[in-house]
């Protein structure tokens, strides 16, 4: 039996390759391992927590089609998946679709070793049952006419393509799944993915649009509390939300954010042990959506009471003229007693707090634009 190390490894996926930063238990010293796949667009790099050795990387380059690379030795060697995610041939008069890139990778339930889920751009859901070696379309949604309508078109999506993301697996029940789409709302399955249904009540949409129309909903990131699978937090295009199951109505907890900062952003981070604690990193979502830190003054905001109140955490961050922001997959927490928080910026800096956001410092700079960051504990 192997035991879990206390030494974190940061899995950094960027626009130009991937890096692994190996930390010590105190999170004081870090060893950079990379670049892996230099020049490839890596949208996500994830460690399988069930074995603690297998890494999956979602890759493409500007000129080549998308694929998945696997490593079973923590990145020493990589092997391409034999059958990466790809849509089925067109049927039922629906338009044919092609995967542009795999965006999100989620290991399935702890009791389903080797099973993974993938979310793609344009929106698609895929599953692997052999550790990421071969992938097949999963569930009915990819070619369900209702979902096709909710996916919208490329024109409705984010600047680099509409995405299926935030695939969540209930640790109590492998058949209880969630995913979210930008755009296209949050969806839930209780039958192992045979069917999904929208879960968007209470979520707001851009002014003038109808919130009853699922396709107008744009969740940016949804997280499940590790110690309370009934509590979900969401950063949305239109605010920050919380949902306590079995309730179905999201509550906009971002209303309590300072008005001059607002509650728009991309990442959402939950505490590993306390479901009352969560963090966001707000972004300027005014007029043309600059997608930068509000006022050029980046900050993390923490709630310690489930979203009733928020406090600014910016000690160590630049106090002016800092125009980076953080993408939806590029912020996370470790499992240490004093929780470490990490985020990677659009300007290629990796930031660290060893005290739950109270103080911040730069761990690495001059990386390419950071797309995703995972905090892993290899065995």
């Amino acid at each position: 039996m192997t035991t879990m190390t206390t030494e974190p490894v940061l899995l950094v996926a960027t626009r130009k390759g991937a890096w692994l930063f190996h930390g010590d238990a105190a999170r004081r010293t870090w060893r950079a391992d990379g670049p892996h796949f230099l020049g490839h667009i890596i949208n996500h790099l994830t460690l399988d927590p069930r074995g603690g050795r297998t890494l999956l990387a979602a890759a493409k380059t500007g000129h080549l089609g998308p694929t998945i690379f696997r490593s079973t030795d923590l990145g020493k060697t990589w092997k391409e998946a034999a059958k990466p995610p790809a849509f089925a041939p067109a049927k039922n008069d629906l338009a044919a679709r092609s995967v542009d890139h795999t965006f999100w990778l989620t290991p399935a339930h702890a009791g389903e070793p080797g099973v993974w889920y993938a979310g793609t751009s344009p929106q698609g859901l895929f599953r692997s049952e052999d550790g990421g070696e071969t992938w097949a379309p999963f569930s009915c949604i990819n070619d369900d006419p209702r979902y096709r309508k909710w996916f919208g078109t490329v024109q409705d999506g984010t600047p680099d393509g509409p995405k299926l993301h935030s695939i969540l697996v209930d640790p109590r029940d492998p058949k209880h799944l969630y995913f979210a789409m930008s755009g296209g709302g949050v969806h839930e399955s209780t039958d192992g993915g045979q069917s999904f249904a929208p879960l968007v009540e209470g979520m707001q949409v851009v002014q003038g649009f109808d919130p009853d129309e699922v396709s107008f909903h744009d969740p940016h990131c949804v997280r499940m509390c590790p110690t309370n699978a009934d509590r979900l937090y969401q950063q949305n295009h239109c605010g920050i939300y919380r949902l306590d199951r079995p309730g179905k109505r999201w509550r906009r907890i971002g209303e309590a954010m300072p008005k001059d900062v607002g509650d728009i952003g991309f990442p959402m981070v939950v505490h590993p042990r306390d479901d009352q604690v969560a963090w966001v990193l707000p972004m300027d979502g005014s007029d043309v959506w600059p997608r930068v830190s509000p006022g050029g003054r980046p900050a993390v905001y923490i709630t310690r009471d489930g979203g009733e109140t928020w406090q600014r955490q910016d000690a160590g961050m630049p106090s002016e003229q800092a125009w980076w922001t953080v993408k939806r997959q590029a912020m996370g927490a470790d499992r240490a007693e004093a929780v470490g928080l990490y985020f990677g910026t659009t300007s290629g800096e990796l930031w660290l707090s060893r005290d739950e956001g109270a103080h911040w410092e730069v761990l690495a700079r001059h990386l390419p634009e950071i797309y995703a960051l995972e905090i892993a504990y290899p065995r």
Partner: protein
Amino acid sequence: MRVLIPSALHSYTGGAWVEAAGGTVGAVLDDLDRQFPGIRFRMVDEQGAIRRHMRIFWQREMVFDLSTPLDAAGELMIVQALSGG
């Protein structure tokens, strides 16, 4: 026939020129995939379309259709468009 492989795909082939067989462009790409697993999907999507930035030339003419017939005497050139950032 000889097939020119773009640099972005040398990680599959190990070099610029390889030998492959087939009576159509699609058949040659299938043969390449047999020799170098995974290479075809990087060039052709799951609906059979040549990907946006890939260009294929036969006898110096650009080919848009995988069913284009070939004879063994020529050279197939696969290049990537110089675009993107």
